[in-house]
């Protein structure tokens, strides 16, 4: 079967399992090693985006329905937490218990939105999700419950400043790790297979007995649940809720870029995308007084990814690293090492005439 392209092999499973374990260990000890608040701040936001990018991928990456309206779920979760913490007089770590509720509210919102938007496909679907986004943003700017454009302030926990970010960090880590685990489970399940069949040819899938609407809606609701939790954690972390930041049009573009960059529809892709792009963006924003330069840079990166790596870094790299290339790389390395041991490079003696 020369020339036949195969799906990623099972042998890579042990490898990726090992990689995941190392990654989790590194992430888990990160705030203990880098105690600088700027570093942990980067860590919290990156983990939040890691969860959101993976959640977005569970719906959009697997089903092929590209949503540019996930900020609706993010913002809904955020406002729910801001309002509930205020109304129920919750402070400190008690506020974290609101996160699953915030996710549930976002999931609830996803049901009617999904029932409307999932009746159409491709570009029309994308446009409808953008419309939902603007409806949500306008509502947040004008409703009394959200404080309108004057926004809401959240209670600030009275934790010591040296380790202030750590509780946020570990909650974000739990959500992110849970999302990636869910992503793995779905990718391997029959439900995940049905989603990917819908992505490839929805009508054909229906003609094979796949109940497309419930499958798509379930994926959207799960995705919205996680996104809502992440949004709620984020708003508690930054401590204020203003409509233009809670419902940020660049939010969805950032998340989509992360997924596309790493590899749309893969489990590891959005993880890699978030781990690289979110810290990069925050670093650039820190260096520059305005955010424009990083936005221009990310816009350009978006173009490069879509034009040259439309399937993302990981799948492209995975394909480039064929067994033959791997063998040549290994042989090359072994030969190089053999040459070095046979003829150790002689350091140039001082004073040797040239």
């Amino acid at each position, binding site marked *: *079967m020369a020339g*036949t*392209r*195969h*799906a990623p092999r099972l042998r890579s499973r042990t490898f990726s399992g090992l990689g995941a374990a190392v990654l989790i260990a590194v992430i888990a000890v990160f705030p203990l090693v880098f105690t600088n608040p700027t570093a942990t701040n980067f860590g919290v936001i990156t983990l939040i985006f890691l969860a959101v990018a993976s959640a977005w991928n569970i719906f959009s990456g697997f089903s092929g329905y590209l949503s540019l309206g996930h900020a609706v779920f993010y913002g809904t979760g955020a406002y729910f937490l801001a309002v509930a913490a205020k109304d129920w007089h919750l402070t400190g770590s008690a506020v974290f218990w609101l996160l699953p509720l915030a996710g549930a509210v976002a999931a609830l919102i996803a049901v009617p939105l999904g029932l409307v938007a999932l009746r159409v496909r491709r570009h029309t679907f994308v446009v409808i999700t953008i419309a939902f986004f603007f409806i949500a943003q306008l509502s947040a700017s004008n409703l009394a419950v959200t404080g309108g454009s004057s926004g809401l302030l959240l209670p600030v926990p009275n934790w010591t400043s040296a380790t202030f970010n750590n509780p946020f960090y570990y909650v974000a880590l739990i959500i992110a790790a849970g999302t990636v685990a869910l992503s793995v489970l779905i990718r391997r399940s*029959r439900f995940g*297979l*049905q989603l*990917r*069949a819908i*992505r*490839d*040819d929805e*009508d*054909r*899938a*229906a*003609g*094979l*007995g*796949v*109940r*497309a609407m419930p499958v798509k809606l379930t994926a959207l609701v799960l995705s919205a649940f996680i996104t809502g939790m992440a949004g709620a954690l984020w708003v508690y972390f930054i401590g204020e809720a203003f409509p233009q930041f809670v419902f940020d049009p660049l939010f969805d573009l950032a998340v989509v870029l992360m997924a596309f960059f790493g590899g749309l529809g893969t489990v590891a892709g959005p993880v890699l995308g978030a781990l690289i792009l979110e810290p990069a963006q925050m670093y650039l924003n820190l260096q520059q007084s305005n955010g424009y330069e990083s936005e221009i840079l990310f816009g350009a990166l978006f173009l490069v990814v879509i034009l040259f790596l439309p399937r993302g870094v990981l799948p492209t790299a995975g394909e480039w690293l064929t067994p033959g290339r791997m063998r040549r790389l290994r042989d090359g390395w072994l030969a190089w090492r053999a040459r070095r041991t046979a003829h150790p490079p002689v350091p140039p003696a001082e004073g040797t005439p040239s």
Partner: protein
Amino acid sequence: MTATLRAEGVSKSFGGLQALADCSLTAQAGRITGLIGPNGSGKTTLFNAITGYERIDSGQVYLDEQRITGASPQRVFSLGVGRTFQLTRIFPRLTVLENMLVPANRGRSTREHRERAMDLLAFTGIASHARALAGTLSYGQRKLLELAYVLVADPAVVLLDEPAGGVNPSLIHHITDRIRELNAAGRTFLIVEHNMEFVMGLCHQVTVLDSGSVVASGPPEVIRTDPRVLDAYLGTEADDA
């Protein structure tokens, strides 16, 4: 597992174009029925009408005595009517085996489902490609894959839209043999095909469509010499003769 599929007085128009006009057709249980006709005569539209891909303006479709008119494609499939498409429609970014696992598994365990999928891949002769992405298969192999995954759920009736179209002759024999074997086990077939040798050699009964209407129906040897059929296919030459 077998059933009779009947379309009665089915009509369908697209704007001003009458694609099907009072079309009736029966695919008898346990038999192979051919559906032929010139391009644009409404064969695929009739397939779409039967399998829920197209809403019809009037008429009824029955599976045995059960009315399935207007049922969704998903429902039609779960009632036991599987179909393939003229331009094969597989899931290119899933592996061949994953393609086989898409159809509902009818209460089988995952392991049984997988075994059945592998058996059918072996039956159609593409088992060695099980791990390949379906998008890398040749056109003929895609036709075989489409036939194989339709069979996973044990449909009582199988509708094939041009199973021999664009397929090399040796593969056509392979496909014919597979259909005969499946039919011998009782499965009902309704086949649209342009290859006359294929239809006449395989089908027990042939129905001829022209401009959305049934012009003839009967055993192949009768259809072969029916002047209305010659007329439909060859235009006015039959009149001149």
